[in-house]
């Protein structure tokens, strides 16, 4: 079984400050990790993914995430937050085992509030 934990329901950041949205995961095989963002009344938009290779992954809109195998974490980061980054962020995992199926398991989501 696979699972994702996003320990913070909400993260508040001032515009221009760095932001971090936390994610930890549990999966039996190799983890394929994803971050998605959801704006009000919209579907989920893909931000970035880690499959293999460099632990630091860069994605859309200046976001990046660092894969840490020993801590089973995949925290989302941005050096300088924008008010327009305010949205709901989801971390997701799937088992990289070829026979494990392709469905994603999502965390509960973290609401990011960036204040001017």
């Amino acid at each position, binding site marked *: 079984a696979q699972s994702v934990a996003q320990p913070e329901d909400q993260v508040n950041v001032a515009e221009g400050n760095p932001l971090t949205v936390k994610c930890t995961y549990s999966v039996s095989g190799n983890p394929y990790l994803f971050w998605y963002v959801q704006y009000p*009344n*919209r*579907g*989920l938009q*893909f931000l970035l993914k880690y*499959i293999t290779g460099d632990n630091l992954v860069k994605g859309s809109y200046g976001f990046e995430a660092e894969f840490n195998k020993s801590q089973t974490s995949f925290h989302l980061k941005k050096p300088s937050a924008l008010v327009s980054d305010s949205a709901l962020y989801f971390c997701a995992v799937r088992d990289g085992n*070829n026979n494990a*199926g*392709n469905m*994603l398991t999502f965390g509960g989501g973290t609401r990011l509030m960036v204040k001017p």
Partner: protein
Amino acid sequence: GAGVSQSPSNKVTEKGKDVELRCDPISGHTALYWYRQSLGQGLEFLIYFQGNSAPDKSGLPSDRFSAERTGGSVSTLTIQRTQQEDSAVYLCASSLVWAGGSGKNIQYFGAGTRLSVL
């Protein structure tokens, strides 16, 4: 099309009625997924179609839920005898699945159908 299209965007129904939700995936995507987003349960996987293989129905919450995918493209999620706890946003996603199981697929989501059961 340019993205995953879902219809209707909103559906209000009475308890006990059947509903059908439609998903039109990105052209050429062989994999299609249904998820449900609800306040109490977060984002839950429902069902997954890949090519001509038998669908993975492991996430369907009850036998009132079913889905089909015709011609490897459009999918319909049917909920029979709707209950109030079925109220949620139903999200569809599609992806390419690379041969050889490299699995570097990115799932692209539609805007969802908001279902309200009165």
